[in-house]
């Protein structure tokens, strides 16, 4: 909220300068966002003197002016304003000056063949008024070359503060002044509003028309008729104030509501009474009822919204915006002034549903002072009669001021207990009293009644805030917390540790960690089993970020594409993040996903290695080993979800629980992301990784010689290598320490449909050295076991 210093001083008697006031505002929770001069936007404009103005040689309506702007020589300016003439003082803009109305810098132009090296400005061009009929004429004694802001008296400081949603009372200059006075920065001097006597009964009646359960929507509605007004511009001081806070003066009858809204936080509406049909009432809208609002748009209402209606139609959206059909114009002569109290939550809901913001909504939804409904009306009456003449009727009132008084028991130790701050009891009483709270002292507590304008005060904690912020947060001391254990104990859960280990294991393998948005394009999500309605965002920030991703893979592939476009063809990227199964809370998995892209880095010493399924298989196994502390024993099954190459992918599962999928990506996916392949990927579902079982057990190395024996088997081409290895291992469990495949061969010398698998078996005796005969026996067992499991035989 903005206000010029002079406005604040209407309500606050203070000697403090702007800097002191600004610092105090921030210190008490009314954060100052900016302090600027009212004329800041005019800082580059200077006073110019029109030395001569003659007809433009090529255009009837243009004049050729020589303007003395304080430089060495007068400047030539082409001007179309009818009042541009010799001898006047004008607002002059040099080339390069930003013109407020357009926000663009002025350029040297050539107009109808004549160069123009500057501009003389109208009120509208400077956003000072709507006047665009001619250029501004400055007083004759304005010094040439002087800053225009000073000449126009726009040098006053304007303070802009941020109002938190709880401080409805500070959406007015009056409320801000009250807070500052309580904080010791001066004395509140706002005078009480005097009632204006009515001279005749209001020809319009008002009524509250609500079912009992909706009475809260509008508990109080007041108004009065004023006849014989003459609308026109509001007084200059009012126009200047409104302009200083960024509002456009319109007419006295409109400006009066803006002025009181800003000055006192009291929203009002002025109807042109002659446009109203019959009497007024506040009621719920009918479903689908329509109203053309003052912003020129038609809104469709629902039965939860409150309207002010006459006998014919809804005439205003209560607490949000008036209707255009009954608004005031230059010809308005009779008005009806409305001042009411509307339920904050209902106003907020109405505004949200209609997507309609207004100053009235802003104040109502933060809570206005229910006791100021009638005084606000009286103040409006006074100003309207002063500015526009006319004769007010009696005040008509429907309903009553909603109950707002409540007592809070505020134990004496509360400020110390919650705020950690020792404040003397009489100081607490002083602060609360200055803020308008009713305070009664008892032995160990205060009984506190918040003022009518502080609907945000809810309990003792709020009172602590009031005391602490006014007393000064800077006085709160730093108090060390206790240590639960002298020496800190571990805090991470095993799942959190596993995640950290996987992340660092992947980085140590050469992957670069990325973090990308959890939402992707629906079409991308659909390629990975997502993209359904349940995973759509209702209000995406962009059309291509509208779906919760089922896995981080689409994000990684999009990142790979962007990096390839920058000339990085070989990539190793990973992300640990959510994959979503639906739009339900908790329906998400933490997935460590990685991609390897490219045909390999060229090197002088080895052939480039295009990425393949075995690279990512190694990644998955290494990540799992990092997470679990030991090698993963789960079997690998051929095949993975549809986005993988059907013949070059695998799944690691423990029973029905899938731990990981990996493999080369399906060529269609590679093409969909416009990648230069090949691409291999993995997805490790961290939530499915079992607890680490890496407890160290005792270990005694065997002193006996280990031996290795090689075997080559011919098996059906379809036989899985892992089955053969498993069979060989099982042939003599106590002796066989390891089985390694060192050759796979299909082709000449091996029958069609068959392949040769060569294994190396390491035998480690534990109690004696093996004899040749014993080794031979184990060898026979291995051959038999492999034959039984795979149908294979020793290669001849």
């Amino acid at each position, binding site marked *: 909220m903005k206000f010029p210093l002079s406005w604040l001083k209407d309500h606050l008697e203070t000697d403090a300068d702007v800097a002191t006031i600004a610092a105090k505002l921030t210190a*008490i*929770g009314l*954060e100052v966002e900016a302090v600027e001069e009212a004329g800041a936007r005019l800082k580059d404009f200077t006073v110019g003197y029109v030395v001569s103005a003659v007809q433009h040689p090529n255009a009837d309506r243009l004049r050729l002016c020589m303007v003395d702007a304080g430089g060495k020589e007068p400047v030539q300016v082409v001007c179309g304003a009818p009042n541009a003439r010799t001898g006047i003082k004008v607002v002059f803009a040099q080339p390069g000056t930003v013109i407020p109305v357009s926000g663009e810098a002025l350029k040297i132009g050539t107009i109808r063949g004549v160069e123009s090296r500057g501009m003389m400005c109208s009120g509208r061009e400077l956003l000072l008024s709507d006047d665009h009929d001619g250029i501004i004429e400055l007083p004759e004694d304005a010094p040439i070359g002087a800053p225009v802001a000073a000449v126009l008296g726009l040098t006053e400081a304007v303070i802009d503060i941020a109002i938190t*949603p709880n401080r409805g009372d500070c959406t007015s200059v009056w409320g801000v002044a009250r807070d500052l006075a309580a904080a010791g920065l001066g004395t509140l001097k706002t005078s009480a509003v005097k009632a204006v006597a009515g001279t005749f009964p209001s020809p319009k009646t008002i009524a509250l028309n609500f079912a009992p359960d909706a009475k809260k929507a509008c508990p109080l509605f007041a108004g009065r008729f004023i006849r014989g007004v003459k609308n026109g511009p509001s007084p200059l001081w009012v126009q200047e104030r409104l302009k200083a806070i960024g509002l456009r003066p319109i007419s006295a009858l409109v400006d009066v509501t803006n002025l009181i809204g800003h000055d006192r936080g009291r929203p009002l509406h002025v109807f042109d009474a002659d446009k109203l049909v019959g009497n007024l009432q506040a009621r719920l809208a009918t479903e689908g009822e329509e109203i053309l609002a003052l912003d020129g748009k038609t809104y469709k209402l629902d039965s939860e919204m409150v309207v002010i209606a006459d006998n014919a139609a809804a005439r205003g959206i209560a607490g949000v915006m008036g209707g255009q059909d009954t608004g005031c114009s230059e010809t308005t002569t009779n008005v009806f002034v409305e001042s009411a109290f509307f339920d904050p939550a209902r106003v*907020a*809901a109405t505004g949200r549903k209609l997507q309609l913001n207004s100053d009235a909504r802003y104040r109502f939804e933060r809570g206005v002072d229910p006791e100021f409904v009638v005084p606000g009306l009286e103040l409006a009456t006074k100003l309207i009669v002063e500015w526009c003449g006319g004769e007010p009727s009696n005040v008509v009132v429907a309903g009553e001021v909603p109950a707002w008084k409540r007592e809070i028991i505020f134990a004496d130790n509360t400020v110390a207990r*919650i*705020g950690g*701050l020792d404040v003397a009891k009489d100081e607490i009483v002083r602060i609360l009293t200055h803020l308008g709270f009713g305070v009664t002292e008892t032995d160990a507590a205060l009984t506190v009644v918040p003022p009518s304008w502080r609907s945000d005060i809810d*309990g003792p*904690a*709020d009172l*602590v*805030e009031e005391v*602490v*912020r006014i007393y000064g*947060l800077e006085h*709160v*001391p*730093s*108090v060390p*917390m206790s*240590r*639960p254990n002298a020496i*800190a*104990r571990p*805090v991470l859960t095993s799942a*959190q540790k596993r995640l*950290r280990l996987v*992340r*660092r294991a992947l*980085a*140590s393998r*050469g*992957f*670069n*960690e990325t*973090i*990308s*948005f*959890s939402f992707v394009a629906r079409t991308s999500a659909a390629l990975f089993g997502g993209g359904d309605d*349940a*995973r759509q*965002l*209702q*209000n995406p*920030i962009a059309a291509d970020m509208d779906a*919760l991703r089922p896995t981080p893979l689409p994000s990684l592939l999009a*990142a790979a594409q*962007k990096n390839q476009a*920058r000339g990085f063809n070989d990539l*190793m990227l990973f992300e*640990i993040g*959510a994959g*979503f199964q639906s*739009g339900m*809370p*908790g329906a998400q998995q933490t997935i460590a996903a990685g991609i390897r892209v490219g045909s390999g880095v060229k*090197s*002088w010493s080895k052939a480039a290695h295009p990425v393949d399924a075995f690279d990512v298989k190694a990644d998955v196994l290494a990540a799992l080993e990092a997470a679990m502390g030991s090698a993963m024993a789960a079997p690998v099954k051929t095949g993975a979800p549809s986005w993988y190459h059907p013949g070059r992918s695998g799944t690691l599962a423990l029973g029905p629980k899938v731990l990981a999928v990996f493999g080369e990506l399906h060529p269609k996916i590679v093409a969909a992301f416009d990648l230069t392949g090949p691409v291999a990927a993995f997805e490790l579902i961290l939530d499915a990784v079992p607890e680490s079982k890496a407890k160290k057990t005792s270990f005694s190395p065997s002193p006996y010689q280990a031996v290795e024996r090689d075997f080559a088997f011919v098996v059906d081409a379809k036989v899985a290598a892992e089955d053969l290895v498993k069979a060989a291992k099982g042939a003599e469990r106590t002796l066989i320490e390891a089985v390694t495949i060192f050759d796979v061969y299909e082709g000449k010398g091996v029958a069609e449909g068959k392949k040769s698998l060569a294994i190396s078996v390491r035998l480690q005796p534990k109690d004696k050295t093996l004899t040749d005969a014993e080794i031979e026996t184990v060898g026979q067992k291995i051959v038999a076991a492999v034959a039984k499991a795979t149908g294979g035989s020793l290669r001849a």
Partner: protein
Amino acid sequence: MTDITALENETLAAIAGAGDEAALEALRVASLGKKGSISELLKTLGGMSPDERKVNGPAFNGLRDRIQSAITAKKLALEEAALNARLASERVDITLPVRPEPVGSIHPVSQVFDEVVAIFADLGFAVAEGPDVEFDDYNFTKLNIPPDHPARQMHDTFYVAKQADGSQHVLRTHTSPVQARTMLAQKPPIRIISPGRTYRVDSDATHSPMFHQFEGLVIDEVTHLGHLKWVLEEFYKAFFEVSSVELRARPSFFPFTEPSVEWDIRCDRSGSQIKFGSGSDWLEVAGSGMVNPRVLDNCGIDSTKYQGYAFGGGIDRLAMLKYGIPDIRSFFESDLRWLKAYGFAALDLPTLDGGLSR
């Protein structure tokens, strides 16, 4: 004797002249082999008289030993020469580059997350987590933000489409719902931090629709605003690795805390990199407050007995400040050059004993 001397000289000269091991072996056979010249000489000893043998025996044996030594020495010399030749031939251009090995990196957000955890773990804060898609109730209502409260407008909320069961949920706008989840699941005393992804419909130079927050929550019977001030001072001191920091408190408003306080840190922005601990500028770093009694009651904790504080800040923002990263949007663009420039080594796990950063 002349014969022997001649034989010795002749043989030694031949050994010295042997060009390779094969020639040397041939010489050995020719002199010391079964029918070699010296072997033949030794055989004549058998036919000699004892006196002759007494003279010739040592002479012949001496000759054999000298030849033997000469052959051995020559053999070693030849081997050495051969090895030297091999080594010379095996020379490589050691200035050639190594075989390509990928160098991985940890994202700054992960690194800073680990740093934050290391600091708070020392004070006994556990790490609590929650889902990205959240119940409206946990994200707002339980935190004292009822529907249509103006504070909801401060949270540009992403809504997920209606679900099959008619329910509708939000992408969490802050990590505070984890507070609610923790309090509902756990009795005091509570000390947690909850880092994670958060979402708001906002995208410009200083906002990203997804960002990272961390939240701290302490609930017990004694903790007050002074403890909050202390913990934040200690945290920022530890995090920015400076000997002192100065915090400035400003009253603020969050529906879930009362009183609510925002914190600015004194800093120096005059140079190219921001410095903490001195200077004349203030930078907003955290929002906080004493947990609103209504929130405690909403989450099943007796607000007449328990109290505590909550605070929150941005992880991305901490990373930007500490490591001089200019643009929050760049965090999520996965530009390899950025990942390498601002990323951390896999083994750079932050610890309190070794320091949070190198």
